[in-house]
């Protein structure tokens, strides 16, 4: 049996009245006199109702006595005139403004397939899988808010801009990188400490990635033999990134391997890394500023350093110039005598402002659930005055694989709601459970 379907649905909603007026309250008394307070938000006088339109088309099919089921849906959701409170400058007298911020369009597909390869009197085996993929984009934006940055979790930011894909995250502070020559792309370091040059230039914000998955898949399978059934639920997420604030705190507290050895991308070395770097002989250090800095750090035998370049301090060049000739830059770490060394925890501390150093691929595969159930025969159940009874052995959260290879469940970055999506804030991982379950139906 094959069924084609299609549909258009539209839902609209507005805002309550009395929103665009001041409200008064009483906060407390002062020497016996009541003290009034003023509240109130402001609404765009020309606000329009929000309109949600969904276009959907699909195929439902069922073959071989329902042993093959296949569903396919393609959809587009147009969320127009989205009503939101947008922060505005306080000189207007208010802090936020409720207005039609713009339109978000989501395009996506959903697939579901169920197969029953085996079905006999005693045996039945079924497998089902589903697949979801969507992309949401800002397709229209009130010109008053063109390109507005919104602070998000853990040093990241979101951008309101026409054409922006929903879920894209940026680092508020981008690394200041060389723009040309052989050192193109290298992080530039400060000429007095050898740590990354700080900047919050909006044109230099590093793109962290999109927190939304490329696609999600779910699998379930069930094997039945007489009164026994074995079932399993699995899920797979492909793509998307998350920022781990958990990692920031743990790195800073020295509770991760990374906080000892670096990862080669940002900084090198530590006391456990190749037995530690030896500090160079102070007398051989090429630049006075570097020697003085290293001396102030005590020449401890726990050296680490940032991977990057700095402008040769003996020249007159602007130390933030990103377009100098190759010989104006010195590659930190190349020669012990021109390297800004610091103790490990200092370097780890430098990464605090840079979520780039802790943005990870959120791809994972999980076995969420396995259960083995035995249905107690009705005749026996009837003896204990039950209509039905079953006993199961169940296991939950049995296996996790992450593409990033971290011992951190990427789902913890998406388990909350609202503004913390895509940022893991020390959420506890899901707990593995093993147990028995007795099901009685009266």
């Amino acid at each position, binding site marked *: 049996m094959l069924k084609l379907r299609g549909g258009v649905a539209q839902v609209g909603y507005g805002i309550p009245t009395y929103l665009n007026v001041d409200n008064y309250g009483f906060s407390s008394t002062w020497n016996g006199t009541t003290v009034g307070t003023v509240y109130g938000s402001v609404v765009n006088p020309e606000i329009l109702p929000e309109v949600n339109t969904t276009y959907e088309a699909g195929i439902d099919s069922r073959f071989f006595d329902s042993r093959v089921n296949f569903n396919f849906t393609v959809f587009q959701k147009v969320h127009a005139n989205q009503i939101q409170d947008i922060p505005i*400058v306080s000189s207007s007298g208010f802090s936020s403004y409720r207005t039609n911020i713009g339109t978000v369009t989501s395009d996506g597909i959903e697939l579901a397939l169920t197969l029953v390869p085996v079905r006999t009197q005693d045996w039945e085996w079924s497998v089902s899988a589903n697949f979801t993929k969507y992309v949401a984009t800002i397709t229209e934006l009130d010109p008053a808010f063109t390109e507005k940055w919104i602070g998000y979790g853990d040093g990241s930011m979101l951008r309101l801009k026409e054409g922006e894909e929903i879920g894209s995250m940026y680092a508020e502070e981008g690394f200041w990188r060389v723009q040309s020559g052989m050192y193109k792309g290298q992080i530039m370091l400060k000429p007095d400490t050898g740590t990354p040059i700080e900047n919050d230039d909006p044109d230099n914000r590093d793109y962290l990635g999109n927190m939304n998955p490329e696609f999600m898949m779910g699998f379930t399978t069930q094997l039945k033999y007489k009164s026994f059934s074995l079932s399993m639920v699995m899920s797979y997420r492909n793509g998307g990134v998350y920022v781990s604030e958990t990692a920031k705190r743990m790195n800073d507290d020295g509770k991760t391997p990374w906080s000892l050895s670096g990862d080669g991308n940002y900084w090198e070395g530590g006391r456990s890394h190749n037995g530690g770097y030896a500090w160079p002989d102070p007398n051989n250090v090429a630049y006075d500023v570097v020697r003085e800095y290293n001396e102030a750090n005590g020449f401890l035998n726990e050296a680490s350093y940032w991977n990057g370049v700095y402008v040769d301090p003996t020249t007159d060049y602007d130390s933030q110039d990103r377009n100098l000739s190759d010989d104006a830059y010195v590659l930190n770490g190349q020669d012990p005598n021109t390297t800004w060394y610091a103790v490990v925890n200092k370097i780890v501390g430098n990464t605090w402002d840079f979520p780039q150093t802790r943005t990870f691929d959120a791809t994972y595969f999980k076995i969420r659930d396995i259960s083995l159930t035995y249905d107690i025969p009705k005749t026996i159940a009837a003896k204990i005055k039950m209509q039905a009874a079953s006993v199961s052995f169940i296991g939950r959260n049995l296996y996790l694989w992450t593409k990033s290879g971290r011992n951190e469940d990427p789902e913890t970055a998406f388990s909350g709601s609202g503004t913390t999506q895509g940022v893991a804030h020390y959420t506890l991982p899901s707990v593995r459970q093993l147990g028995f379950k007795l099901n009685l139906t009266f």
Partner: protein
Amino acid sequence: MKKYKIYSLLFILLMSFSCSDQFRKEQLEMAEDVNRLTTPAYLLSGSIVRIANFYQEKGVNDDKFNAIMLYYQQLFSVKSQSHEEFAKAPDNWGTEYKLLYDTQAGINEAEAVGFVSTVAAQRILQCLIFEYLSDIYGDIPYSEALNGREGDIKPKFDMQEDIYTGLMKTLDEAAITLGSSSDELDGDLLFGGDKQSWIRFANSLKIRMLIRSYDAFGGSKQSELQAAANALIIDNNDFNAALAFEGTAANNSWIWGPARSGGEEMTRRKPSAPFLDLLKVNSDPRLLTWIAPALEPWGDVDNSYILEDYYAYPYGINMLDSIGQDYGDFPFGEAYVGAPLTVASLEYVYGEGPGSGSYDNYKLSSYTSIFVEDANDLLKATMFEASEVSFCLAEAAQRGWITGNASTYYEAGITQNMERWGIANGDILTYLGANPLPAGNTDALTAILTEKWKSLFTQGHQSWFEYRRTGIPTVVGDDPDYVALPFPSRWRYPTYEVDNNTENANEAVARLGEDTQTAKIWIISNTTPVK
């Protein structure tokens, strides 16, 4: 959004039930009218409480007013009045504009029911905050500000000259209204409904503004200044615009009181050496009211073992060495020791405190215990005091801007300030006798403005605004931080406003030249320091 839909649905349901009940609706309307008549009073008391508290807190607590004016030094590793600190733009001016909107809401409500005196009082408070903001930044949103309800969410920045002109006009109109109106002034926590006191407040504020902008206006406001000097002003501490603290909870207690700050706000601020030394040299009786001796002074010069003890502190001696401090300069045998300006990390370097977790330094003088009470008669949330008006007029008379005897105003200013701090009459007379107004214009102006600096202790914002104009006391500019670089004479525009009201902010910056802490705003563009 899901929640939102549910709320809208609920609302529709509620409406359909309540609208059918005509009788209840009428009742509600009656109740609403009663509220309309009482709301202006609550909004006035609210404005008074919030603005007085804000103003006092800034006047005593903000390092960018008080540390730079050397009332105190912070026990922090970084000097809070350094150029680097001033180079950082504040995040926002949301608190200030919220206060301004609160007054605007109060004005709107009072106007709707015709309470003209309440409108006038709210306008005076609004002027105080607009003047404060404009004195800090220069051009700010003013004529188009507070207008978000009408959809004006990106107000333009007005020129400071226009702001000053507008504010002074508003003050004049408020004084006229208060002088001729017959309605009651309810909710007046400040003056108990006494309209004359509000007139004095308005005129005194105008005098402050006229003095501050006298040169910027090119001397064209002389007759206005003379008229204001002859009008009703705050010429007695009884008329001070000051609100007594209740002292029963965090939000109604003195800024540094334990209920509000836990007490640490005071111990980590130490009276600075130049301020303390000046009080000491002049035998100023306010020294004992304001400043307490060090808890554990350096002892006798012969007890050099103290220095040996000091060697035990790992940070201390090392840092002293690195900045080349001479141990001979240590104030052995002195109980009144002000915080030196040259030393960073004062909590470690120049003595010792209670250890980790709190900031203090037992080798330095502190403020007296009245500053850690939740409520004390000497400490009110103050917006304007008689002594400031007197010193304004003393300067004006000395410069020939108004007629009158500079010495009389000068002595009145000292007397009013000392009385305000509870100094005994005899001590005041002794001080006046020993410190008469010197002859010679420069010396006289220096004496007036130095006394004004002392009298503005706990009103640090006014002190900084005045120093930018007059350069007195010169010791402020001798702070090593400002010898090489120009004195920080304004704050940079808040980043939030610049980022989100960019076009208008850029226009203001273009008029200013550049948005730096040393750019000269209009009000100080035409002044020459006294010395």
